[in-house]
């Protein structure tokens, strides 16, 4: 099946652009963190770009996503501007969360990004709640709950899928199966090889997807979104991928062989997508370079924006604990 049968050239290129923006943003984050410019700790999305980009391409701007500790890619793909994300990572007052949240709590409700979440699988029930709310309000919005192969063993995964399935809610549960949870291979902690089989427990479809192919992540999400929007119910998508970097920046990665990492890096989803686009005649070599250059400038602008922004004043630290004090 040729690519243009499943997506428009514009969309294919848009996905490429999103992937490149994520890649360059995250590479810069890694550098900045290593240089001691960013407080906290950061989990980068490098290697998994085909998931955020493909999934979010299948969503409307007002659809919802809930994200994870590894959330920058989701935030970018869902339409947040790079400046406020970067400023948030710096802890600046101009950050998306005014510096209160940092890397693990990037959010922008205006584009349906309901928050990165520092609690593994913490977003799944929230996605179900957003879908319930959308149905009740009759808006046709759907919700995507991103989580990892580690998150699939958390009780909240079970509770959320059962609830969403029972009520045929418009949720797509996207497992970003990057093979590891922190330092631990999923094979050591998870009783099944193919995570998509867990859908059977809820009577919903479960599909294993090549998570490094945006055509696949997009197409499967599109199908799942159609079911979600029509009220047929949720879907579990097990998107197989690999994170190129450590769990967090600074991770010594003693738990996996560098040969394994090397082999996986060779399947770089962005390069692969560029080959596809070139093969299908959708992109010339020069056009690709322009995308990288443009994204690079955007990232630099985001860094400048962040650097030039002020830190929040200590005196504002108690704002927004509550909406109103009583």
């Amino acid at each position, binding site marked *: 099946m040729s690519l243009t049968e499943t997506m428009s050239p514009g969309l294919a290129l848009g996905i490429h652009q999103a992937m490149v923006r994520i890649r360059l943003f995250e590479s810069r984050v890694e550098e900045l963190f290593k240089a001691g410019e960013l407080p906290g700790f950061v989990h980068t999305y490098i290697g998994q770009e085909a998931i955020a980009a493909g999934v979010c391409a299948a969503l409307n701007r007002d659809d*919802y996503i*809930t994200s994870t500790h590894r959330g920058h890619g989701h935030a970018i793909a869902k339409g947040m501007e790079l400046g406020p994300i970067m400023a948030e990572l710096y802890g600046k007052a101009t*950050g*998306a*969360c*005014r*510096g*209160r*949240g940092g890397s693990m*709590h990037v*959010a*922008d*409700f*205006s584009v349906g990004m*309901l*928050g990165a*979440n*520092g*609690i593994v699988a*913490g977003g*799944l*029930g*929230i*996605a*179900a*709640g*957003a*879908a*319930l*709310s*959308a149905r*009740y*309000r009759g808006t046709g919005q759907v*919700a995507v709950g991103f989580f990892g192969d580690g998150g699939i063993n958390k*009780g*909240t995964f*079970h*509770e*959320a899928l*059962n*609830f969403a399935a*029972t*009520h045929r809610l418009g949720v797509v549960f996207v497992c970003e199966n990057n093979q590891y949870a922190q330092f631990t291979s999923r094979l050591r902690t998870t009783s099944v090889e193919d995570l998509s089989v867990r859908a059977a427990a809820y009577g919903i479809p479960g599909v294993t997807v090549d998570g490094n192919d945006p055509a696949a992540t997009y197409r499967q999400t599109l199908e799942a979104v159609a079911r979600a929007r029509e009220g047929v119910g949720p879907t579990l998508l097990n998107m197989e991928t690999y994170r190129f970097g450590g769990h967090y920046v600074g991770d010594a990665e003693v738990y996996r062989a560098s040969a394994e990492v090397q082999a996986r890096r060779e399947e770089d989803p962005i390069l692969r997508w560029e080959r596809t686009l070139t093969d299908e005649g959708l992109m010339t070599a020069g056009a690709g370079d322009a995308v990288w250059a443009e994204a690079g400038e955007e990232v630099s602008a985001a860094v400048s924006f962040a650097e030039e922004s002020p830190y929040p004043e200590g005196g504002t630290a108690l*704002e*927004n*604990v*509550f*909406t*109103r*004090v*009583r």
Partner: protein
Amino acid sequence: MAQRDGTTRRMSFGQATVDAMRSAMREDDRVVVLGEDISWGGNFGQFRGLLDEFGPDRVIDMPISEAIIMAVGVGAAVTGLRPVASMSFVEFTLGAMDEIVNQAAKFRYMFGGQVSVPLVLRASDGVLRSSAGQHSSSLEGLFTHLPGLKVVAPSNPADARGLLRAAIADDDPVVYLENKRITAKRGPVPAGDHVVPLGSAAVRRTGADLTIVTYSVMTLHAEKACARLAEMGIDAELIELRSLVPLDLDTVLSSVVRTGRVVVAHEAWEFGGFGAEVVAAITGQAFDRLRAAPVRVGAAQAPIPFSPPLERAVVPGEDEIVAAAREVMGLC
């Protein structure tokens, strides 16, 4: 206290909460209810009749999945609804603590104020005829410590109604604690649609000799204790907090500076309980006016036992308040 005197109606605490739910749901169709068995009224009748009027889209029977009851509540709250989530026994909130503490309570702050979480968590607490270790606790000491949560604990039908109205109208997460022993207790409720603002304590009795600070079921014990103390010639002022967060410390302090003597009473465990905060706050603000050490009344430090004589030994009541008052008066 007339059956119906034109300005008040008599109803039980539980009915008053149903009444508040009904008013809120009629007024605002963003209010939905999430909980186990609520189609059938819930374990204590706290939701009786709501299904009939509002239907299953607004009165949603949840699976036994406490974590997801709260998470769904959060997800719905941040996308335009105003959910009321039910946990029947307060101990079941322990299975949803991540969602209560790490999500509901922190979202507004962590996200820099871009969103509010208008969510009410109703839970029934306290001992009720030997419900034993996992169905008898009072856990406000956990919720009050955690920033981002408001906490209320009314003791009578009028406040039950007025505070639940305020809680549902509030844009922040509110933990609404209803003691099991008072759910069936009846009392007058103003006929109109009254709201009791969060963060306002009530002076239930004025007195010159000491200040008793309490809330929830202990208010009823304290009222009886005040009557007994009066017979002994001790004139107690009784303050019912009603809201624990925000805490109306002004009302407390303005009494304490007059009496100089304080008893703080709750049914929850004394050790590390909310009473410790009240005592520490009073001591911090009014030390020079204190004439004796404040005395706390709370449960002894044990899981709540089943057998009635043991339950009675662990959980305080009227007698313990009287004894504490006498102690703070230097009479024992």
